């Protein structure tokens, strides 16, 4: 099953890259995507629990606009800090830890990267369920883990 999924995704990627729709190049595409899915399908879709991938994907796409909005906020925040004349009074870096309830790898990775992209915080490391986060000010540190975790739990772990 996962070979077929990988093959379909890879073939879509090939069509985007190639842009040639004659028989010869499509055959090459089928061969290449078959080869890649043979080599690395079990890497690409390593997932102990089988779940409905499609609804998860749709919910993740719905999550993206909110994330983009957060990225805009965070860039404005960094811009403000960097150009602030008395920058050192504005920042007060700390390292905070917290424990998350998310269990699957993909949810943890999404949470970590979302933390990195939102204003004022960067994930340093993830040990099992404990996140080490560097926050640039106390205010940013207080807002962790925030509503992100609930949103991601809704995306990845509600079936």
């Amino acid at each position, binding site marked *: 099953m996962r070979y077929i999924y990988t093959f379909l995704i890879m073939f879509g990627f090939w069509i985007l890259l190639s842009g040639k729709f004659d028989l010869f190049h499509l055959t090459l595409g089928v061969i290449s995507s078959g080869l890649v899915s043979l080599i690395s399908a079990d890497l690409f879709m390593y997932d102990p629990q089988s779940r409905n991938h499609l609804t998860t994907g749709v919910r993740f796409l719905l999550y993206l606009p909110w994330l983009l909005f957060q990225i*805009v906020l965070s860039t404005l925040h*960094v811009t403000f800090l*960097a150009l602030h004349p008395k920058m*050192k009074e504005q920042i007060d*870096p*700390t390292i905070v830890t917290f424990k998350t309830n998310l269990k699957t790898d993909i949810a943890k990775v999404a949470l970590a990267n979302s933390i990195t992209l939102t204003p004022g915080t960067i994930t340093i490391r993830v040990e099992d369920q404990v996140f080490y986060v*560097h926050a640039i000010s106390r205010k940013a540190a207080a807002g962790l883990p925030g509503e992100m975790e609930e949103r991601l739990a809704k995306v990845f772990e509600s079936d």
Partner: protein
Amino acid sequence: MDIVVIVLTVIALLFFFATTVGLLRFPDFYSRMHAAGKGDTLSSLVILLALVLYNFHEINLANLLVAMKILLIAVFIFMASPTATHAIIDAGYESGIKPWAKNPEEESP
């Protein structure tokens, strides 16, 4: 259309500039990483969006494919950039860089 492209590019350049200034001005490694990791992602996305709009002046298949490829670059940057940020900052943490503290005597690690 050109005006939109110019406005987007200028915004992206502004963010890039802020990123660079942050990279030079922030006091310690961790806060520099904030500047490098965040500013870059959004400004790359914005400038790539501007280039997509500019190259999409007439609608045909070839232009569509080029636009899709530029968007693919954006997607890969979006996936790779936070991870690279995380990798670098983790390496720094592992090798024991002390964070810069506002009041050094108050902090006790």
